[in-house]
């Protein structure tokens, strides 16, 4: 296809070149040849006059021999075809070609035609009409007629050859060969032809070269890329450095493949999750059966060997570890559903060191230095130690993956902080006075199920999803109108009013809504413009709470800004086939189940920090 474009271009440009050069040279050669002819004409005229003048005296003296000599001398010069003098009757009386003398010239012959075209011959001939061009045997010949008029001296001469009544005495006819001129013109034509041909060839080569460079190569690259993508290699990238349309095309092509590969990854992930679910079920069944053998026999033996403490201790280890395996398999089955944490009061430092011991090998292989900064005297926290250990292991492995094999640093620090509940406390449940659940699992705000309410404002209605984080106010509005001052919020299920009668927002004076958080009092708030006032007395009274802050920072590749919001979503993974994309979403779920929060800060190529806040008191 690319070749066709090249050929088409060459064809069109060649035709155009030939046309332009052809027209140009046509007119050029024509004007050149007419200039040449004019020059030859002038020259002939001059020659004719010269002959006339140089023979005049001899004519008057009637010295015919001298006239013959002069005419012969001139007529035999190169380039001159013939010089002859004809009398009135058409008889050649002098000629440079001796054999012609005495011959009669037909009055209808070419040379005579100018004057003898009409029946009565012209006696005066304008100078422009005196020339004629005719084809001789081998070449073109230009002839010029010079009439010899009767003069006083002619009839007064001694020879009395002419009478006074005659007007015309004869004609001097000089013919000059145009062979040279014609040669020049032909040479010019050939030169032009050669020039035109070489121009077309050069243009074709030039066009061919640049079409190959600018069109052929990028098109070939594109075709190659589509073929690669056709075979499934979505990581194929084409060079997009060119600034022309192909550069643009390459950019948009690369963008397309990027989007495609993202979509494929998503699809792949969800597909993987589905098959992983089936696999987990199958594996769970397969593993649980042999585990049953181990666990039943070992626990049975343990029961039977209570009086043999040495063996009993060892059996206890087997039973304990098998039970641990049982938990792992169970979590495999539960992973789609957030399983309930089994919380105990534990020392967080212990959990951290257990997690570290699991990944230590991997860290040292990758030349990663782990720096632990754990504040002394952290009171025990109520957490599920298995789940929490899983959180730390996952975060450490992620950090190690982000650093890669070139080595780096991971800093793990934990400290006690105090946090105000405003802006961080999660409203986990909300009910209307008739105890309808207001939480909306379909619409999530920053990953948390929102609180769905129905709004009436200015006789219009719509829905609003309130931010479930107390005081943050990232609400989502599902209606096209502005909220009027007299808005009313109701339960979307039973339409019961959620407005606090007579109460106004202390900040913006808008009406105040309220809903109950089961067993944790009431949340109040307003929807005034640019106002984010909310009040949750039960939480506020508790005041600032003690939180345990655990921060895991790495010096890895960092996370691009646009991905930061996505990383806690299930199935989001940058590790391709290596990860399931569940790690961080599971971590998020675990921390959330512990009423904690996890957030991420990252700078590209500098590193990433995950910050976990766990409340010391579990309500």
């Amino acid at each position: 296809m690319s070749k066709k474009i090249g050929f088409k271009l060459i064809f069109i440009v060649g035709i155009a070149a030939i046309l332009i050069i052809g027209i140009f040279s046509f007119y050029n050669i024509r004007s050149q040849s007419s200039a040449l002819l004019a020059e030859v004409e002038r020259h002939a005229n001059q020659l004719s006059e010269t002959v006339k003048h140089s023979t005049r005296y001899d004519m008057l003296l009637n010295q015919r021999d001298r006239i013959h000599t002069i005419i012969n001398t001139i007529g035999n010069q190169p380039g001159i075809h013939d010089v002859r003098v004809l009398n009135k009757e058409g008889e050649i009386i002098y000629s440079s070609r001796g054999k012609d003398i005495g011959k009669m010239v037909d009055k209808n012959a070419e040379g005579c035609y100018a004057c003898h075209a009409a029946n009565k011959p012209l006696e005066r001939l304008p100078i422009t009409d005196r020339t004629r061009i005719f084809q001789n045997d081998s070449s073109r010949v230009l002839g010029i007629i010079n009439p010899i008029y009767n003069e006083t001296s002619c009839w007064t001469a001694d020879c009395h050859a002419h009478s006074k009544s005659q007007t015309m005495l004869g004609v001097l006819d000089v013919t000059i060969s145009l062979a040279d001129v014609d040669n020049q013109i032909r040479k010019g034509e050939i030169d032009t032809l050669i020039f035109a041909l070489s121009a077309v060839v050069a243009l074709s080569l030039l066009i061919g070269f640049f079409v190959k460079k600018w069109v052929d190569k990028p098109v070939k690259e594109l075709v190659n890329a589509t073929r690669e993508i056709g075979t499934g290699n979505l990581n194929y990238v084409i060079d997009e450095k060119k600034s022309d349309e192909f550069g643009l095309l390459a950019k948009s092509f690369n963008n397309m493949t990027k989007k495609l590969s993202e979509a494929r990854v998503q699809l792949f992930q969800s597909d993987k999750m589905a098959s992983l679910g089936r696999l987990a079920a199958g594996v769970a069944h397969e593993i649980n059966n042999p585990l049953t053998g181990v666990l039943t026999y070992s626990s049975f033996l343990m029961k039977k060997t209570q009086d043999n403490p040495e063996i009993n201790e060892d059996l206890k280890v087997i039973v304990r570890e098998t039970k641990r395996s049982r938990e792992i398999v169970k979590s495999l089955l539960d992973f789609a559903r957030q399983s309930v944490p089994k919380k105990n009061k534990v020392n967080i430092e212990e959990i951290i060191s257990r997690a570290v011991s699991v990944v230590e090998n991997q860290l040292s292989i990758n030349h990663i230095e782990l720096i632990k900064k754990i504040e002394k005297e952290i009171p025990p926290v109520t957490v599920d130690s298995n789940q929490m250990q899983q959180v730390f292991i996952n975060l450490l492995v992620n950090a190690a993956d982000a650093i890669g094999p070139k080595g780096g640093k991971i800093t793990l620090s934990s400290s006690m902080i105090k946090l105000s509940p405003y802006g961080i406390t999660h409203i986990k449940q909300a009910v209307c006075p008739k105890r309808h659940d207001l939480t909306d699992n379909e619409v999530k705000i920053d990953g948390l199920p929102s609180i769905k309410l129905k709004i009436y404002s200015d006789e219009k209605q719509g829905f609003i999803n309130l931010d479930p984080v107390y005081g943050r106010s990232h609400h989502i509005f599902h209606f096209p109108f502005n909220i009027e001052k007299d808005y009313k919020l109701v339960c979307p299920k039973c339409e019961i009013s959620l407005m606090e009668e007579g109460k106004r927002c202390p900040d913006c004076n808008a009406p105040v809504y309220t809903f109950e958080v089961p067993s944790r009092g009431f949340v109040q708030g307003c929807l005034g413009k640019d106002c984010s006032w909310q009040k949750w007395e039960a939480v506020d009274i508790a005041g600032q709470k003690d939180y345990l802050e655990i921060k895991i920072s790495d010096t890895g590749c960092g996370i691009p800004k646009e991905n930061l919001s996505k990383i806690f979503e299930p199935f989001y993974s940058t590790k391709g086939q290596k990860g399931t994309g569940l790690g961080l979403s599971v971590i998020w779920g675990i921390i959330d189940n512990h009423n904690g929060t996890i957030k991420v800060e990252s700078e590209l190529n500098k590193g990433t920090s995950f910050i976990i806040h766990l409340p010391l008191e579990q309500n």
Partner: protein
Amino acid sequence: MNSDTVSSGSRGKKQWDILVIDDEQVIIDAIVKICSSENFSVDSAIDAQIALTKLVKNNYRLIICDIMMPGMDGFEFLDELINRRINSALIMTTGFSTVDNAVRSLYSGAIDFIPKPFTADELLSSVNRGMKYIEIQSLLKTQKDDSAVVYVPCPAKYYRLGYSSWAAEESAGSVLIGATDLFVKTIGNFSSIDLLNPDEELIQGNSCAYFKDQQERIFTLLSPITGRILESNSEIVKDKTLLEKDPYFEGWLYRMLPSDSEYELKKLINCSSDRL
């Protein structure tokens, strides 16, 4: 083998305590070993078809049956038992221990569900409860004219997860849950209850409370519905006899906010139908 239990039945059938059905020999061996150590007579079958032929020849008080088996699975086997009016008590067990399997087993009439893998104690606690259940059932049959009330049936408008736990909707939208009288009776004399804390999540078919008896055996109660615990009955921790005296009212365990009671209650047995 216990000579008391292995005796000829009324129609010349051989009497056994337990029949184990599992497609894995190692599990059969383990269960046989553990149950024999408690002096139960144990027979076994490698699949449900063999079990059915054995059931023609013999009587079994208790059947421990795996769900996932080639050919006839545990649920089909259970249906067949009901069809043939065989009233042996059935304990379901499976390596594929999902919530659905647990709830479905209890709904279909199994008296307990043990997820694999289990320990010897877990198995024995379930088996002992099964034996107790059979005793109560046979007492019920012999003393039809109610001289002494053997057990308190579940009140109307209550829902129960097999013979394990019950749930009752309250007007405020919350749900009370507790242990059925039969469950309490089958444990016998328990010494302590371990309850979860408010705000924790319960999942239908997963454990929600642990009862310990004098021998330190743990009996697990499965939650009838999914939801968040609003409060637990503090009275019951103080006075555990409440549970025995009034298991359906004063003896409630948790008040909880259900996440989807409408759907989950359908998977429970409506106690109103018990009276028909």
